């Protein structure tokens, strides 16, 4: 085990994958210069571990600022023998390539009756909470969840990031990885050996008996802080991180709700049609009889993200809002026997 940051873990997973399989390539804007710090080594080409030095210019490819062709060409390359990792830097740039994501990446295997495989990973970071204004602060995974054919990972810890990303690269389906910029510096002990975390298997961070808190991406940390504080008040909260939104491990969530009867979902996306909405709908349909109280969503309200530091942070889910939501569900008149 080694201490790795979230960003370092992503770099490690990419390096492993590059070393293991010569068909893996990385393409994206400024990947050669390692601007975002996931291309190995340090910040200088002279540093040990620099991807361009290690893997060469044929496999580490600086692209023009042309997201549509970047995504589409990666899809075409994946259909013909490569296993590209596309670094799209900020998640807000994905829209530029939306047609390729929806009409090619998600549909080609299906439309062509299984003739095509698309082993390709699209990485991007959500930069919200950093005073970059509306154009750089998006958390757009819910819209991709509505597109059958894509798989979606939202790692919340360094070890999950490494294990999930490794699985993603090995998988024959297209994966979108939404990484949270505010987690980049988060550190923990991570296995430096190869390991893989399966998609569709939630991580239960804490067991609990009074309420189930499902956290997504940064929401996991809000949930964990909330759970810790709630414990002091005698409220036992389970904290579950689905880790992948497609496929979604609804079983683990349903099982926990069966025990607690209460559900709070912490999701940094905008409220309407969020991942939280989906999880709520699944539980309201499949575990209604277990529910003792309203299902609460702690999400970013349906407004765009303002620049001013005075008014941005209030918008995102945090521990305080999560605690407030849990209190509300605990106060709700118990309905079950």
């Amino acid at each position, binding site marked *: 085990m080694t201490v790795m940051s979230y960003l370092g873990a992503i770099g490690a997973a990419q390096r492993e994958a590059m070393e293991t399989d010569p*068909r893996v*390539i990385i393409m994206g804007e400024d990947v050669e210069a390692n601007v975002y710090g996931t291309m190995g080594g340090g910040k200088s080409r002279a540093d040990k571990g620099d991807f361009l030095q290690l893997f060469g210019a*044929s*496999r580490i*490819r600086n*692209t*023009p600022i*042309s997201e*549509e*062709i*970047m*995504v*589409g*060409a*990666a*899809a*075409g*390359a*994946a*259909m*013909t*023998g*490569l296993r590209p990792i596309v670094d799209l830097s900020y998640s807000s740039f994905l829209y530029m390539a939306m*047609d*390729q994501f929806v*009409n*090619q990446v998600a549909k*080609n*295997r*299906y*439309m*062509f*009756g*299984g*003739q*095509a*495989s698309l082993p390709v990973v699209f990485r991007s970071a959500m930069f919200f909470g950093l005073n970059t204004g509306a154009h750089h602060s998006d958390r757009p995974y819910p819209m991709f969840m509505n597109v*059958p*054919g894509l*798989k979606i990972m939202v790692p919340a810890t360094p070890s999950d990031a490494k294990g999930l990303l490794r*699985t993603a690269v*090995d*998988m*024959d*389906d297209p994966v979108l990885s939404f990484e949270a910029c505010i987690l980049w510096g988060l550190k923990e002990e991570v296995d430096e050996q190869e390991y*893989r975390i*399966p*998609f*569709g*298997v939630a991580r239960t961070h804490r067991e609990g008996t009074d309420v189930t808190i499902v956290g997504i991406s940064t929401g996991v940390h809000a949930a964990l802080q909330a759970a810790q504080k709630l414990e002091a008040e005698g409220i036992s909260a389970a904290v579950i991180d689905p880790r992948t939104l497609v*496929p979604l491990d609804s079983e683990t969530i349903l099982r926990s709700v069966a025990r607690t009867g209460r559900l709070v979902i912490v999701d940094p996306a905008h409220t309407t049609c969020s991942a939280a909405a989906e999880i709520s709908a699944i539980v309201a349909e499949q575990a209604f009889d277990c529910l003792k109280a309203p299902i609460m969503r702690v999400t970013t309200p349906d407004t765009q993200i303002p620049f001013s530091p005075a008014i941005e942070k209030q918008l995102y889910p945090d521990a305080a809002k999560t605690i407030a939501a849990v209190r509300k569900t605990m106060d709700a008149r118990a309905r079950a026997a």
Partner: protein
Amino acid sequence: MTRPNDLLIEMQTRMLRIRKFDERASKMVKRGEIPGTVHTSIGQEAQVVGACMALAEGDYMTGNHRSHGHPIGKGAALGPLMAELTGKATGVCGGKGGSMHLADFKVGSLGESGIVGSSIPIATGAALSSKVLGTGRVALAFFGDGAANQGCLYEAMNLASVWGLPIVFLCENNQYALSTPAHTVTAGVIAERAPGFAMPGIRVEDGQDVLKVHDAVKTAVDRARAGKGPSLVEVVTYRFNEHSEGLRLGTDYRNPAEKEAWMKRDPVKLFRAYLTDNGITDSAALDALEAEVTAEVEAAVQFAADSDYPDSSVAFKHLYTEPFGANL
């Protein structure tokens, strides 16, 4: 360019296949035997076949909604194509694709696209594979004059150019996008956009002549295979039918005199004349060929008719690797 006789005969064979297949498909749409609609390549056979036959068997190709000609030109078997059009389980995509989404990976056909312009990046990616893996394969992207105004084409041309990718961008300029005359929505000449992206732009003015098309595309393919990068080839041609079968537009967006003049230059007839005039073969042999192709198309129709529809569970297959999440 000298071309062996059997290549010339094969050109005519494939053009005939497209013509007969599309004529048959058109009828079937009108009779309700094919659901939805189809977009025929009738009148554009020389442009399709001249381009496809400049490619090697292992080369890649992507296309668009005007879709049957491309895989046929690339050598796909007709039965599974026709079965696909009728939504049968034996269709080349198992009935999941339909007319606009034909793909036959066996012959390098990576897929037609119902979204205008959207398959150009796929071909570019196939060329990237070829370059990185060193397979020597060339990719060709078919698209229309209408698609030439989609931004992704220029992103693709730029990327292919700076990376030196083995790809040919093949613009089928049939002068209209649905009801819209190309000159009303296209600034300048499409082929002349190529130099701005540091690649040759070739305009084949007579796209009804399969040999002229073949010459131009062969030059571009050779260039690509030699590692010299991409080219843009624009072929001027004309579709003889309506944009799609069954569509009825009230406006005369195509001038009847223009239409008549172009229809006189039927690529299949022109090349038939070329073959006999140059003593490559004779009328009797060509009649026999035509009968053979007609039979081939009828057999494809029969194959489709004899095939079953897919089981309802098939709608849930092939979205991901199977079983779902198999590759954990």
